[in-house]
Structure formats: structure tokens, C-alpha cells
């Protein structure tokens, strides 16, 4: 029972991993690519680690995979925010079909 649930979670994680990397190749802009990539972390690899925890049970490897999953859930939004802020401050242009850029408006208001 636990083994079947673990295999289902690992399958969901593989699906999200493959689609996230496909979005990393196909999307037009650094910010769109970052959005797809963060989905790939949160729904893909965390799901794989939770499936490993379900298959291993409460052994050493299972608890370590649960620890790694919580660490990734805590640090993935920090990385995405820091990367997008750094790219915007470094002057990377938005895609020409973008509608609104409120961070640039805020920075013009500050200066």
C-alpha cells in the first residue's frame, strides 16, 4: 500500500520535473523561465522526496528525505525572489509582449 502510494508520488514528481525543464527551454523571458523553474522545484523534486519517504517508512533514509524536502520547501522561494530581484537590478529586459512592470515604476518613484 505504502509502496504503491510512493510510486504514484514519484510519477507525479517526474511529470512536473519534465514539464518544468521544458518550460525552461521554451518560454521567452528570464522571469517566465524562473516561474516554470520554481514549479519544477516545489512540485517536482519535493514530490519525489515525499514518495521516497513513503516507500522507506520511518527509517534513517526516509527521515533524511523528509528533512531534505522541508529544506527545499523553505529555500526555493528565497532563491526565486533573490534571482528575480538581481536580474531586474542588473537590467535584464522584459519580453516585448509584457504588460506591466510595477517594480520599475516603484523604483522610479523612489529615485
Amino acid at each position, binding site marked *: 500500500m505504502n509502496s504503491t502510494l510512493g510510486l504514484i508520488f514519484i510519477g507525479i514528481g*517526474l511529470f512536473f*520535473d519534465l514539464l518544468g525543464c521544458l518550460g525552461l527551454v521554451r518560454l521567452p523571458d528570464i522571469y517566465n523561465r524562473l516561474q516554470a523553474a520554481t514549479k519544477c522545484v516545489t512540485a517536482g523534486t519535493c514530490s519525489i522526496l515525499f514518495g*521516497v519517504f513513503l516507500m522507506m517508512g520511518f527509517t534513517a533514509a526516509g527521515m*533524511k528525505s523528509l528533512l531534505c524536502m522541508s529544506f527545499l520547501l523553505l529555500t526555493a522561494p528565497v532563491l526565486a525572489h533573490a534571482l528575480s530581484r538581481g*536580474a531586474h537590478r*542588473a537590467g535584464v529586459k522584459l519580453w516585448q509582449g509584457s504588460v506591466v512592470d510595477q517594480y520599475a515604476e516603484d523604483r522610479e518613484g523612489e529615485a
Partner: protein
Amino acid sequence: MKIVRWFIGAVALTAVVTLIIVRPMPFLFYPDLPHLEFMGRAMYIIILACLLCLYRVWKGPTGADRIVAVDILGIMIVGLCAILTISTGRMWYIDIGIAWALQGFISILALSKYLEGKGFDE
């Protein structure tokens, strides 16, 4: 020219899907563990995702694209270590995954602060 590129892409996609369905990656040294066929196909899918990330590292127009692709490559390798833990039965592969996640977090944070163009102590 665009038709030729679409044709090459379709041939490569068909070859990869056929390889994944027909012949999963063999584990020669651990033939008696359960779920080995599923794990072989899972390793093919993760290696395909790593190749897509490497294409973005090679072709990225700006530096920020390359940094994002390297970040996702590290996350893929954490997932590969988690799958190797089950498919080989060796428990220390997940330790490699934890260490890779910690080191990747620190290095990508430093790279993004460098990209911002300021010091590290803001």
C-alpha cells in the same frame, strides 16, 4: 530551414519515447530489488530533463538565464539521488542529495547577489 529543425526535433522525441517505453535502464548489479523497471524509466526521464537544462546553460542569452538553469540542474540531481536510494538500496545516496541541496542554496544566493552588483553585506 524551420521545417528541417521541426523534423529533427520530432525524430529525437520519437527515439527518446521509444527508448523509455521499450528498454528501461538496466541495473546489472542489483537484479533482485523491487520496482526496477519503473526506476530505470524514471532515471531516463530525469537525465532528459538535465539535458534540457544543459541546453539552456549553453544557449542562454544573459547571465541570469544560466544561473537559473544551474540552480534547476542541482535540484534535478537531488531528485536523481533520491531515486538511486531506492533503486540500489544504498542509504548514503540521500546524504549526497542533502549536501548538494545545501551547497546549491548558498552558491546560487551568492551568484544572485553578485548579479545585483552590490556587496555581500547589504
